[in-house]
């Protein structure tokens, strides 16, 4: 009898404990290493016994994830608490009212102190109209990946300008006579990466989409020159194959892994694949360099990176905030750098000996991330991106001349910016 009473008491206590346990759900993309994220969250659960964190894994690209998130967030679904979003999205999240403002939990003095620790570009990207929408998970930028073995064989140093890269590619292609080898790879299909491709030459000539006040400043001539540059890589210099309009970032990454590219402009995630994938034929043969300069211009890279935000429809915002602070801490950034070769958003980690041992090229990556340029910040960014990527894609598919496409892109941008 006594045992039975004790059992009842125990069951009651267990149910109380269960009720007090908070379940949080974190949303990340399929390309963001759910395995590594699980280990990070396991540590958090150990330190916070009352909290259970589940991971929901979305599609493999930024666009696919956002498609799903749009459905969840427009229906005000409370099932997600902390969400990992692409750097291009905070403005949209703020305008649509999907993100909880983090200022609510951070007194302004603490906020400024906290933000000083991150790379400035990410602070800028996450503050929309004065409100802190998200905190950085990891940084990213485009680099020039090159075949160290091939460049060494022909006595070349990593190219500093695009003209050099083109010439080196031409000579290596001529010398190798390998029908499966291509020169310079860049993204040209209808996807987010193609927006970066379009903007690179524009940034490198010192221009941008908007001026400091956020007014449209891009001209048709600047857009045309960018489109012409990429078209010339195929038609005039013959260092890129004629089907670049088909190429997504991960297509080029996979082909480079098979040894089919001399140069490619890719984000940081590619390194881990080249070095560690079992089917990689280029292990230890890949070098990473700063993006080349244009003759008379400067070097420009496209700023990437992922941010943690709290869903405005979460029912556990206070706990979600605590988790978000952990996920955006230097401790987690180091784990991500070690296990997923994600670039940290904290400058001091680029000198961390453990990280440099596994990712020697991080040593030179900091200036690239520091000088990388952000894509336009605008609540209607998806429309801006669509105009740019479809314009470049049409030029590469030769359905539009650079003149026509430049005119159409600018027409689209003028409608969006209301100018």
């Amino acid at each position: 009898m006594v045992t039975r009473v004790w059992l009842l008491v125990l069951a009651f206590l267990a149910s109380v404990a269960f009720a007090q346990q908070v379940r949080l759900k974190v949303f990340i993309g399929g390309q963001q290493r759910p395995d590594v994220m699980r280990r990070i969250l396991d540590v958090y659960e150990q330190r916070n016994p009352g909290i259970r964190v589940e991971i929901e894994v979305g599609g493999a690209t930024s666009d696919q994830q956002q498609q799903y998130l749009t459905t969840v967030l427009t229906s005000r679904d409370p099932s997600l608490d902390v969400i990992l979003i692409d750097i291009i999205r905070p403005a949209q999240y703020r305008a649509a009212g999907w993100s909880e403002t983090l200022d609510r939990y951070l007194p302004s003095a603490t906020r400024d102190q906290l933000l000083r620790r991150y790379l400035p570009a990410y602070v800028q990207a996450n503050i929309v109209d004065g409100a802190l929408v998200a905190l950085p998970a990891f940084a990213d930028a485009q680099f020039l990946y090159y075949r160290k073995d091939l460049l060494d064989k022909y006595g070349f140093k990593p190219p500093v300008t695009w003209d050099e890269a083109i010439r080196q590619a031409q000579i290596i292609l001529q010398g190798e006579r390998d029908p499966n080898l291509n020169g310079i790879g860049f993204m040209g299909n209808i996807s987010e990466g193609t927006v970066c491709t379009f903007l690179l030459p524009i940034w490198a000539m010192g221009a941008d989409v908007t001026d400091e006040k956020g007014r449209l400043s891009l001209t048709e001539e600047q857009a045309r020159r960018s489109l012409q540059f990429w078209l010339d890589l195929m038609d005039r210099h013959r260092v890129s194959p004629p089907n670049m309009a088909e190429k997504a970032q991960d297509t080029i990454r996979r082909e480079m892994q098979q040894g089919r590219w001399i140069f490619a402009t890719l984000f940081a995630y590619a390194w881990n694949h080249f070095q560690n994938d079992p089917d990689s034929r280029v292990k230890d043969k890949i070098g990473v360099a700063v993006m080349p300069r244009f003759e008379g211009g400067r070097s420009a890279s496209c700023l990437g990176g992922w941010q943690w935000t709290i869903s405005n429809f979460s029912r556990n915002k206070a706990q979600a905030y605590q988790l978000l602070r952990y996920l955006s801490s230097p401790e987690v950034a180091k784990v991500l750098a070690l296990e997923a070769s994600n670039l940290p958003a904290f400058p001091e980690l680029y000198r961390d000996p453990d990280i440099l041992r596994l990712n020697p090229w991080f040593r030179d990556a900091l200036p690239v991330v520091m000088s990388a340029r952000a894509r336009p910040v605008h609540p209607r960014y998806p429309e801006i991106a669509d105009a740019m990527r479809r314009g470049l894609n049409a030029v590469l598919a030769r359905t539009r001349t650079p003149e026509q496409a430049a005119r159409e892109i600018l027409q689209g941008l003028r409608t969006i910016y209301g100018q």
Partner: protein
Amino acid sequence: MRRPWDLSERALAFFFLVPAFLLLSLVAVYPAAHLFLTSFRELHLALGTQGAFVGLANYRQLLEDARFWNALRVTLEIVLVTVPGATLFGLALALMANLPYGIKWPVRLGLLLPWAMPLVFAGLIFRWFFESDFGIVNDVLRRLGQGPLFWLTDPILAFWAVALSIVWKTSSFVALVLLAGLQSIPREYYEAARVDGAGALQIFWRITLPLLKPALLVALIFRTLTALQTFDIPYAMTGGGPGHATETLAMFIRTQSVENLNLGYGSAAAMTLFALSMAVTSLYLRHLQATEGE
């Protein structure tokens, strides 16, 4: 004796229809009405608009949107190419599956395969077929000594590659409907015709085709409607590219509402697709009634 709780036949019929009516209202009428109302509002989530009533502004914007007209043109071209294509191909398959010999079984099995496959799978499979470096189509061309063709990045080739995939995917549905129609034609007609000395072609034109007409119409209605709503296959194969060359109306609607979050504008575009589908259906139904009245 009639008890007070006994209902008249009419009332009983009404009573039985209520659940179906309620269900339809919930899953079809309510969303359609909501869509209709949204199409008159300025509901752009990315701009934080509150959904003010703007009358016909969204429709006016559609009329001036070159991308909308392009999507409409692509959609109609897909209807014009894939509906006759799938019907002819489906008819041939149905006739083969209806043969009295052993060949009908492999054909019948083969019919089910594309029909059972999700559309987006078909799109992904065909994207790999037509991929320019590793695709099987270019591999065959290379073995024949022809240069590789850039199927998915040439606007004209991309359209035909997409159309071909749609025909492959959808002709089995047409064939299944027609096969059912073929089997409902009494054998005696054929026997009588053969006794009278009719040739195979004559039998096809005079007996099979006229008696198959109702089934053909049903297949045509469904095929045209699904062709108007074409989304999955071009989305998986080309993403609407190169540029906008294979972007259909359904893809345009998705981009406006899901990607750009412009729900009002997307709803207006969806209403035009809805109207188009209704127009086509009523045209077919009228034709069907006219033939039944003969």
